[in-house]
């Protein structure tokens, strides 16, 4: 378990919203009562059953990036509520309340930093912000992150944690699928690697765009990954879904996930992939 010693100092979990307060936490999967400090040290993975708790972008930043290297950009892009949308509440009010409650500005945070010394641009979605839903701002921030990767000529990583497109922005949300996919095609033409990291959950429009367009697809164990939500499918076909349906392992078995990586190994395995892409195969003549 040398991963653990290596990352101990960089670990600064600040996510207090997802994990309830108190000294002890019950595992959502196996029911084990875990000492909170212990869970923090284990990157919010249950020591008994390996269940990966859902965590915020900030914890992923501390897990993945070399300490103090991650710099956020475009943090002030905000939605304008283009449809003047209202259900039981106004979208604009809900939006403001979400910013206040979560302390984050949108469902994706973008920045640049170093992972085992490799410079990478990364977009991290955060489920706490309106279910990680993709609206205009998410699309624009990801589009600009792709531009940044092209400018710096460095790899791109997008971490998905999202229920799909944001209904409150209607057609504009849908168009973000096309926008981000078009930009990824451009990135690909520049020969820059793109790693898609799929966490629990990655569904709907997020899966039907950038999450499924990586050069390498990495999933955390047990993550819900799919296009349609399980409830919709069950309703449509009128029968029960097979066990493990739409979980990382199932999706890998059907050929859409390259590797499933335990959160404890995430940094090291991503670094290995970045090493692979960065490596230049010099010909003998040149190296001589």
């Amino acid at each position: 378990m040398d991963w653990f010693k290596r990352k101990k100092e960089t670990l600064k979990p600040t996510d207090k919203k997802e994990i309830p307060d108190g000294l002890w936490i019950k595992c959502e999967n196996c029911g084990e009562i875990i000492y909170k400090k212990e869970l923090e040290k284990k990157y919010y993975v249950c020591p008994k059953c390996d269940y990966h708790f859902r965590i915020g972008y900030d914890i992923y930043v501390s897990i993945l990036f070399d300490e103090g290297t991650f710099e956020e950009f475009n943090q002030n892009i905000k939605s304008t509520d283009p449809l003047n949308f209202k259900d039981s509440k106004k979208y604009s009010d809900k939006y403001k309340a979400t910013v206040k409650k979560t302390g984050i500005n949108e469902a994706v945070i973008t920045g640049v930093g170093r992972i085992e010394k490799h410079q990478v641009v990364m977009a991290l979605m955060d489920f706490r912000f309106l279910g990680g839903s993709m609206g205009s701002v998410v699309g624009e921030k990801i589009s600009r992150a792709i531009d940044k990767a092209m400018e710096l000529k460095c790899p791109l990583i997008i971490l998905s944690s999202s229920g799909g497109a944001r209904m409150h922005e209607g057609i504009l949300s849908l168009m973000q699928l096309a926008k981000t996919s078009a930009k990824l095609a451009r990135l690909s033409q520049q020969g820059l690697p793109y790693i898609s990291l799929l966490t629990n959950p990655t569904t709907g429009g997020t899966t039907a765009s950038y999450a499924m367009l990586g050069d390498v697809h990495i999933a955390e164990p047990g993550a819900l990954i799919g296009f349609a939500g399980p409830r919709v499918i069950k309703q449509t076909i009128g029968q029960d879904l097979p066990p493990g349906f739409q979980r990382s392992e199932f999706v890998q078995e059907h050929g859409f996930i390259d590797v499933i990586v335990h959160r404890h190994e995430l940094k090291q395995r991503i670094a290995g992939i970045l090493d692979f892409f960065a490596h230049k195969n010099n010909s003998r003549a040149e190296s001589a």
Partner: protein
Amino acid sequence: MAIKNNKFVLEFEKPVVELENKIAEMREYAMSTGLELEDDIKRLEKKAKQLRKEIYSNLTRWQRVQLARHPLRPYTLDYINKMCQYFEELHGDRRFADDPAIVAGLAKLDQYSVVIVGQQKGRDTKDKLYRNFGMPNPEGYRKALRVMELGAKFGKPIITLIDTPGAYPGIGAEERGQAEAIAYNLYAMSHMPVPIINVIIGEGASGGALGIGVGDRILMMENTWYSVISPEGCAAILWRDAAAAPTAAEAMKVTAEDLQKLDIIDEVIPEPEGGAHHNPDEAIATVKKVILKHLEELMQIPPQELVEQRIKKYEKMGAWTE
């Protein structure tokens, strides 16, 4: 045009249809009895005309959604058969199967050879099941991709006709990568070096529509809808009641007029009064005329510039502030 068959009459169309049927009855009665009813008939016809105008010039978003779903509305193959001098349908994705929910093939549209791709709905029960109600599986999107790539390879413009209640939410669809199939189409369509014209001819439901909907021109017929989720789906999630669909349709702003105001689509194609199903031939002829107009424009643009403009078009989509 009188609709004798009341089976497919929408609630808001009823006053007009009832009046039209009454006029037809009077005509028959006048014929069989030899009575002179022409003045009365003319009066009623004037009234019907006025009533039609009142109803169809003030349609709510939900009424347009209903017109977009009208069972007598022309479907993709109706357009292809009427618009094209030649059509050879190509089947299968060369990977898994042929998906009847999508038709794709080689076509001749006046002076242009083009490839056409579109979702296909069925008319009767058997046909509906065969077409899976116009809900494609991944192999449908991959067939579409294959035929569009064929167009791109041989410099043939691509026309896509969009009419789907959504990509199929089934077990097999998930197993075969519905999300990946759609995502890859968006990725590939963004860079195809030929003109691409997308026309919403009925329902444009979410990723299932967009999966064949990336292009240089996005056109919508007057009585169609296009959004990130169906009004029912949105209502079920945000209002916790699918019956709130009319409210959700209003809130999401799903009509052609809305999408034009939001700078998403390039043109609204007018429909015959009462909707495309009142005069399918006229509706199809108008669509063809508009497609040809855009095609002529796009054919003047060199391929690389076309792709550049297309990416810029999508880069601009969205609403944000900083």
